[in-house]
C-alpha cells in the first residue's frame, strides 16, 4: 500500500512539474511575443513619424534658407540663414490682412455650421416626421455628390444673388465676399455639412430619452430642451465639428478659388496664384530667388496659425475620438 502511495505521489509531483514548466514556458512565450510586438510597434511609429515629419522639417529648412541655388551638399541645415523668403512670401500673401481674412472666413463659417448642423442633427435624431428617412437619405446623398457637379450654378447663384426672389428683380453680386461661405454655412449646406449633420445625429441618438422627459416636466419647450439640455451635453461634438470645419475651411481651395477672384482671398488661393506667378517669372530666368524656397516659406506662414491652434487644441481633437462615438 505504502509503495503504491509513494508511486502515486511521485507521479503527481512529476505531473505538477511538467505543468509548471509548461506554464512558465507559456508565460515566457507570451512575454517574448509581447516584447517583439512592442519593438515592432515602436519601429513602425518612428518610421511613419519620419515619413510624416519629413516634408514639414524640409519645409522649415527651405523657408529659412539664404541660398539661391539648391545645393547637393545641403540636406537639412542651410549654409546661410535668412528671413528673405519669409519676408517676400508675407509681402505676396499680404500677410496680416490675409490672416484676418482667412480666420474670419473659417471661424465664422465653422461657428455657423455648428449651429445649423446641430439643429438639423437634433431634428433628425429625436423627432418622427413624415419623410424623415427620405430627407436624411438626401443628407447622405449630398455627402457623395462631388462639388464640381454644382459649383458653377452655385457660383452663378452668388454672382446674381436673389434668395427666392426676395430682392425683387434686381440681384446682388456677392462674389469676393465672405457671404459666399457664411450663407451656406448658416443654412446647413456649407463645406461638408452633410458629414457634420451625420455626426450630430449619431451623437444625439445616443443620448438618454429621460433627459428630454425631465426637461418637459420642468416646462421646457422643444427648443429650450435643445438649447439648455442637449447642446451643453454635446459640447465635445460641437468642438470637434468646429475644429474640423475650421481646418477644412482654412485649407479649402476648390470653392474658395471659385468665389474669391479680386479681393478677400484666403491663403490657399493666394499661394496657388503665387505658384503660377513664380513659374511664369522663372521663364525669364531671374537668378536671385528660388521658387521652391519661396513657396515653402509661403506654406509655412500660411499654416502657422493652424499649427499653433492644433498644438493648443490637440487634446480636444484626440479626446473627441474617444467620445464622439461615430457608428456606421
Amino acid at each position, binding site marked *: 500500500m505504502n509503495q503504491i502511495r509513494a508511486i502515486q505521489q511521485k507521479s503527481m509531483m512529476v505531473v505538477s512539474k511538467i505543468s509548471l514548466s509548461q506554464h512558465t514556458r507559456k508565460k515566457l512565450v507570451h512575454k517574448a511575443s509581447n516584447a517583439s510586438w512592442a519593438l515592432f510597434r515602436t519601429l513602425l511609429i518612428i518610421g511613419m513619424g519620419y515619413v510624416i515629419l519629413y516634408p514639414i522639417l524640409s519645409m522649415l529648412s527651405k523657408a529659412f534658407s539664404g541660398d539661391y541655388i539648391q545645393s547637393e551638399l545641403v540636406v537639412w541645415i542651410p549654409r546661410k540663414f535668412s528671413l528673405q523668403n519669409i519676408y517676400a512670401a508675407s509681402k505676396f500673401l499680404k500677410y496680416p490682412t490675409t490672416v484676418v481674412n482667412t480666420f474670419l472666413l473659417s471661424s465664422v463659417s465653422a461657428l455657423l455650421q455648428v449651429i445649423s448642423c446641430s439643429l*438639423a442633427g437634433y431634428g433628425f435624431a429625436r423627432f418622427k*416626421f413624415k419623410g424623415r428617412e427620405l430627407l436624411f437619405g438626401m443628407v447622405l446623398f449630398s455627402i457623395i455628390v*462631388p462639388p464640381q*457637379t*454644382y459649383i458653377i450654378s452655385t457660383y452663378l447663384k452668388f454672382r446674381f444673388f436673389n434668395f427666392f426672389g426676395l430682392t425683387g428683380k434686381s*440681384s446682388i453680386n456677392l462674389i469676393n465676399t465672405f457671404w459666399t461661405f457664411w450663407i451656406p454655412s448658416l443654412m446647413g449646406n456649407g463645406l461638408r455639412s452633410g458629414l457634420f449633420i451625420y455626426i450630430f445625429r449619431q451623437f444625439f441618438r445616443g443620448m438618454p430619452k429621460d433627459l428630454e422627459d425631465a426637461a418637459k416636466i420642468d416646462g421646457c419647450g422643444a427648443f429650450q430642451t435643445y438649447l439648455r439640455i442637449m447642446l451643453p451635453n454635446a459640447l465635445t461634438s460641437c468642438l470637434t465639428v468646429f475644429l474640423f470645419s475650421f481646418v477644412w475651411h482654412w485649407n479649402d481651395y476648390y470653392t474658395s478659388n471659385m468665389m474669391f477672384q479680386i479681393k478677400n482671398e484666403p491663403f490657399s488661393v493666394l*499661394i496657388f496664384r503665387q505658384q503660377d506667378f513664380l513659374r511664369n517669372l522663372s521663364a525669364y530666368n531671374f537668378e536671385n530667388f528660388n521658387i521652391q524656397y519661396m513657396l515653402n516659406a509661403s506654406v509655412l506662414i500660411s499654416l502657422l496659425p493652424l499649427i499653433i491652434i492644433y498644438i493648443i487644441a490637440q487634446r480636444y481633437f484626440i479626446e473627441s475620438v474617444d467620445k464622439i462615438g461615430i457608428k456606421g
Partner: protein
Amino acid sequence: MKRLKGKFHLSLEERNGMKGYAFIMLWLIGFIFFFIMPIIESFIYSLSDVKVTTSGMKTAFVGLKNYHEALLVDPNYFRQLVNSLVNMLYEVPIIAMFSMFIACILNQKFKGRTFARVLFFLPVIIASGVSIEILKQGGMSTDINGMDSIYMFKATALEQILTEAGISQKVVMYLTNLVNRIFDISWKSGIQILLFLAGLQTIPSSYYEVSSMEGATRWEEFWKITFPLLSPITLVCVVYTIIDSFTYYQNPVMQAIKGSTDGLKYGYAAAQSWIFFILIFFIIIFVLRVVFRNTVYTEE
C-alpha cells in the same frame, strides 16, 4: 365650428413631427436653394449651350451634344476618367488596410501614445491641396528641374533586387509603386485613422476578455472580433476614401472640369461633371451592394 377645430387639431405625434420640421427647416431651405436647385440647373446646363452675359445666363437647348463631345470627341476626357478610376482602385484598399492597422496600434496602451496620435493626425490639419503639393515638390528630390520626382521616396534598390530575383515585371511594378506611395498613403489616411479609432472605442472590452479566457490569440481576436465589428466603419471609410480620391483637386477629371470652367465652357463643364458624378454614384452603389453586403450591425 367644433368640427373645424377638430380638423386643425393635431395629435401629439403630429405636433412632435411639426417640431421636427421646425428643427430641420433651416437646413431644408438651404438644401433646396444651395443643393437641389444648383444640381437641377447644372443638369440643364449640361444639356445646353451656356453663355454668360451681364444680365445673367443665356441657355440654348442642344440635347446630348455636350455628353457626346465629352465621351466621343474629346481625346483627353475618357482617358482622364480611366486614370482617376485606376488611381482610386489602387488607393482605396491600401488606405483602408493601412488606416485600420494604424488605428489598431494607436488604440493599444503604450508609452507615448498621445504623441503618436498627435503625429498621425497632423496630416488632417495640413493636408490641403495646394500646401501638400508644394511640400511634396520640396521634399521629393534635389533635382532642380523637378523632373522624375512624382514620389517622395523612390525604391530603386527594391526594384532592382526583385527584378534580379526573376519576379515578373508587373508584380515588381506594383510592389515598388506601393512603396513609393507610402508618403501619399500616410498623408491621405488621417481622417480614416480617426474614424477607425472612434469605431474601435465602441467595441466593448468584455468581448476581448471573454475571448482571451477562452484562449484565443491576438490574431484570432482581430479576425473574429475586431474586423467584423469594424465593418460598418470600414464601409464609411471606404466610401469616404472613394469620394476623397475623386474630389481631390489634383484628380485629372477635376483639373479637366476646372479647365473647361476657366475657358467659360460652362455647358461642357457641367456635362463633364455629370458623367463623373454618375460614375462615382455607380461605384458607391456597387461598393454598398456587392462588396459590403455582409456588413455586421450590432445595434438597432
